[in-house]
């Protein structure tokens, strides 16, 4: 059996692993990435692609996204492979007075946190797209939000990482892991041989708890399923990402005044025009284990929600659907952190629906953590693993 040594072993070939690989390799570290499947073969190719601040809790959360946006803008210039980057901003639309009031306070808080948000009135909404329902009252805008193709972004990061010397081993599942108490080295068993690593980064997404469990960790991440509809090329409906304000409610588990099914499946409209002029339309949120099959009842519900906001696209053509599992954490923030009880073991997972948004900042931060830098690009406390120390059972 082969045996190889590496300074940093990243477990997970999704967008998070890709970004960490890129920044660590670029910083001169010796990096190996392993994945049980292919690059971007899990959640990172079963999602939509946005670097959003608009839907982040004002404060640390939205600032983290803003930093990520800046990094992605840089990446769009420094990486060789195009990943369909655009930065047209994004909007949230409101369907009730209550939502408008909530939106105003959202905008105020985001502005206070230093982000460029503003309210939109009925007229602005009409200007935004002639396809919108007439009864929408207004909404809000985040000017800095950007959009990318998630799997092309992942491919591009890996392409960049390998140019800086990163090694990528695919179809290479972690079968077991141990840490030598004397040398402190990690021994990782894979079908392609043993890997000895000084440092390990668990970027396993929904599988992070499974990987963590090999060293006795209890990582509070659960798969939360989301569906997306792909609609075929048609006339441009709008130029940028649109979400209904209710998306925030659904994301943060707040009460909404919607019909039973919409509530049950956590359906909230998310609309994204892609570079190939298709439309990606979501969204849903369900805890149904690791079942990735598309549930047509959920898709029906999303289609109804779409028509509610865009009645004029009822005759547009749906060409396929897909669903992905988002790595959910109890407080909706990711874990990007060293693990105190296991020196040189790190976790970068649990981004739920924000993995694409936060990949760049995660990669950058993890590189700094791996190098034991004191001054990091963003504060690390809110996303430390240790915040879950006292959470013994995960509540959904």
């Amino acid at each position, binding site marked *: 059996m082969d045996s190889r040594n590496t300074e940093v072993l990243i477990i997970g070939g999704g967008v998070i692993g890709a970004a960490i690989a890129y920044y660590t390799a670029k910083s001169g570290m010796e990096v190996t990435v392993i994945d049980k499947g292919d690059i971007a073969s899990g959640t990172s190719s079963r999602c939509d692609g946005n670097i959003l601040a608009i839907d982040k809790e004002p404060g640390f959360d939205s600032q983290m996204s803003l930093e990520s946006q800046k990094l992605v803008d840089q990446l769009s210039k420094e990486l060789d492979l*195009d990943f*369909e980057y*655009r930065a*047209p901003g994004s909007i949230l639309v409101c369907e009730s007075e209550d939502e408008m009031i909530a939106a105003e306070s959202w905008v105020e808080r985001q502005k206070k946190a230093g982000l460029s948000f503003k309210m939109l009135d009925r007229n602005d909404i009409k200007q935004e797209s002639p396809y919108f329902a007439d009864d929408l009252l207004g909404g809000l805008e985040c000017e800095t939000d950007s959009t990318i193709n998630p799997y092309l972004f992942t491919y591009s990061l890996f392409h960049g990482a390998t140019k800086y010397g990163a090694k990528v081993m695919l179809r290479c599942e972690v079968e077991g892991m141990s840490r030598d108490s004397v040398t402190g080295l990690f021994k990782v068993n894979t079908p392609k041989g043993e890997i000895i690593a000084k440092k390990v980064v668990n970027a396993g997404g929904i599988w992070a708890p499974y990987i963590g469990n090999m060293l006795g960790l209890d990582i509070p991440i659960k798969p939360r399923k989301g569906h997306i509809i792909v609609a*075929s*090329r*048609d*006339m*441009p409906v709008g*130029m940028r990402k649109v979400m209904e304000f209710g998306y925030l409610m659904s994301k943060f588990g707040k009460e909404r005044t919607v019909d039973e099914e919409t509530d049950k499946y956590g359906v909230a409209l998310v609309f994204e*025009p*892609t*570079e*190939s*002029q298709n439309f990606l339309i979501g969204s849903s949120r369900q805890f149904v284990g690791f079942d990735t099959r598309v549930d047509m009842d959920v898709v029906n519900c999303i289609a109804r929600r779409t028509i509610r906001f865009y009645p004029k696209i009822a*005759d*547009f*053509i749906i060409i396929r659907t897909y669903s992905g599992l988002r790595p959910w954490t109890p407080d909706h923030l990711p874990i990007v952190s060293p693990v105190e009880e296991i020196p040189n073991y790190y976790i970068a997972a649990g981004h739920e629906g924000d993995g694409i948004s936060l990949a760049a900042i995660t990669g950058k931060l993890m590189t700094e953590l791996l190098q034991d830098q004191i001054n990091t690009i963003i504060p690390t406390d809110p996303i430390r693993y240790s915040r879950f120390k006292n959470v013994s059972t995960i509540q959904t």
Partner: protein
Amino acid sequence: MSKGRIIDHPILGRLDEREEVHFTFDENKLIGYEGETIAAALLANGERVLRCHEETGKLRGIYCNIGHCMECRVNVGNQKSVRACLTVIQEGMEVKSGRKLPTPFKKGETQ
């Protein structure tokens, strides 16, 4: 019936007389026969080009003729992506060829 049709066939016999159906293709008035598909009626009228590729503008006609390839998709009234090869023509039907669409996000094109 027009010259595009196979009226007499040595094994299948003579084509039955059928009712005419009047329809338009991109505003041109054409005649087909009851029970036939848009694709058949258009080909019998000498129309080979049914649409162009939405992005590149390259011309397309029927390819598989049994609903698999989607190449013959046309617009019928307000309906998009109607497969000409599976859809029976109706009196007064307005058939429109598929056109090139704007691609505002393609690199090198104006937003």
